[in-house]
């Protein structure tokens, strides 16, 4: 293992992380909801009331708009470098949806919110997806 100091961005990472944590905290404080993106998405389907659906849509709209606003205000383009393409890209998308639905949460729900509540369930989930993601990257890099 070598550390890629050139791409290490501790300040912006920590600052961004704090904003993510703040958003999770505010959602709990105002709406009493866990900020788990996969859960918020999943709740759009099925037997949700229209009131339940509308706060989810408003939140997701904010998530879509936030980065656009940030890019426009800061004049700094948001970097995007794809790592997968073709069939792998779509298979990955499907697995992300499938896995978060079955595992009841993703990086935000289990990671930011679950760990902050010291939930053993979320701790296990984070360990599981971190391990499998690290292993996947290691395997993909070997191929």
């Amino acid at each position, binding site marked *: 293992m070598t550390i890629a100091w050139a791409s290490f961005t501790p300040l912006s990472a920590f600052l961004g992380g704090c904003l*993510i944590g703040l958003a999770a905290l505010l959602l709990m404080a*105002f709406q009493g909801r866990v900020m788990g993106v996969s859960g918020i998405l999943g709740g759009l389907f099925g037997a949700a009331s229209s009131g339940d659906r509308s706060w989810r849509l408003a939140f997701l709209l904010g998530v879509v708009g*936030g980065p656009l606003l940030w890019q426009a205000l800061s004049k700094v383009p948001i970097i995007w470098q794809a790592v997968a393409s073709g069939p792998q890209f*779509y298979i990955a998308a499907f697995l*992300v949806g499938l896995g978060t639905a*079955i595992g009841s949460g993703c990086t935000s729900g289990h990671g930011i919110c679950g760990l902050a509540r*010291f939930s053993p369930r979320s701790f296990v989930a984070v360990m599981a997806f971190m391990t499998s993601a690290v292993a996947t990257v290691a395997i993909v890099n070997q191929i």
Partner: protein
Amino acid sequence: MTRLITALIIGAIFGIGLAIAGMLNPAKVVGFLDVFGDWDPSLALVMGGGVLVNAIGLRFVLEREAPIQSAEFLLPTASSIDKPLVAGSVIFGIGWGISGLCPGPVVASLLLNSNAMLPFFGMLIAGLLLGRIVMRLVAARHLAWAEWRFYLFLSRVNGHNRPMQFFDGDSEMEPDYNAPLDYLPRIKSYYIGLGYGEPYEWAKLDHVPFTHLEKPLCEARIGIVTTASIFDPANGEQGPGAPYNGKAKFFRCYAEPITPFPDVRIAHIAIDRAHTTASDMASYFPLAAMQRLATAGYIGSVSPNFYGLPTNRSQRVTTQTDCPELLSLCRDDAVDAVVMVPNCPVCHQSVALAAAHLEAAGIATVIMGCARDIISYVGAPRLLFNDLPLGNGAGLPHDQPSQDLAARMALDLLLDACEPRTIKASPLKWVGAADWKKDYSNIALLSDAEIARLRAEFDAVKKDAADLKKAL
């Protein structure tokens, strides 16, 4: 409206946080996950910062009675670390590792990189919907059923005649004072003590038929078989704590509708009157629990009728008359499986004989009973054993959770049992007097005067029953 605006603003803060943190760049995310290559630890700080702010803030937020804009805090209630949690997270990790994208950043870059992200988002939603279907199947034990059929198939392929057992009989390990009461020797010495010479000869099946439930529970129609009788005020005292009442007996199988909610009583049979008053019908008639499970989607439906099986001391009448009648009543309603609840010792025999008859005809059965030794002596396909005084086969009186648990365990046994004579003990414990096992029909505890009184009483009861039978 203000709720929606705050949700929008909070979403925007989250999106901006993701953008600043670098989470929107898949290459940076993969750089973090590439622990064995050129590792960029930045995202550990994202996670660290997020958890730190949230954890500190939550200490104050959750002190509040309620959230600012809604009625209550909706925190996850699941606490068990189960297979879906781990399997799902591993699957998610694979997708995350391949693409460097998790749901938050996908939504946040929908319009930033719409060409790549809209199709990705579409596939993510497709996976999410499939995952929700999988979870619904898991909740309905659909998958457990598939798993069970698979083991059955494997065992046939391998030439084993006995598939894998899903549970071990840990109840066998119970210390002695917890051991189930053996009714057969107790009853035998009781009647000998009362002065009846020839002990009753209990039925004993050489061969116990066995039928696998041919569909998942969530599609199955479940019938209830009871030895309780329909309440008819004309038949004398049958209320809670009523003494033995032979007049309320019935002698033919019946099918009665479950709506309006029926009233059935067990005053006509030998339940444990010293310890149980039969004041809660749900402790011996599990209709309400089954209806709750049907509403929850755990079973397909409850049969529109429930079925009464007479408690008949004559094994010939039970097997030759009652069993075929019960079968045809069950067939009329196309039930897939029945839950049978006996009450008195002879009820246990009748129900075991009926279970064998139904299984041979392709209807799966499970008995919820309190007399374990009678069921194992006679022989029955499946027994959920509730170690409670007679008259509480379906759970503790006035304790709905215990009745729901017993009902669920009985249904699960329909699926989990691999062979006849499967007995599973429920964890329910009697909450009343601890010595109920000691004093049930215990001749050693009775004085001569009491024995004489009981003998006279029993003779009268027998005569009443014989008269009633003749009159019918």
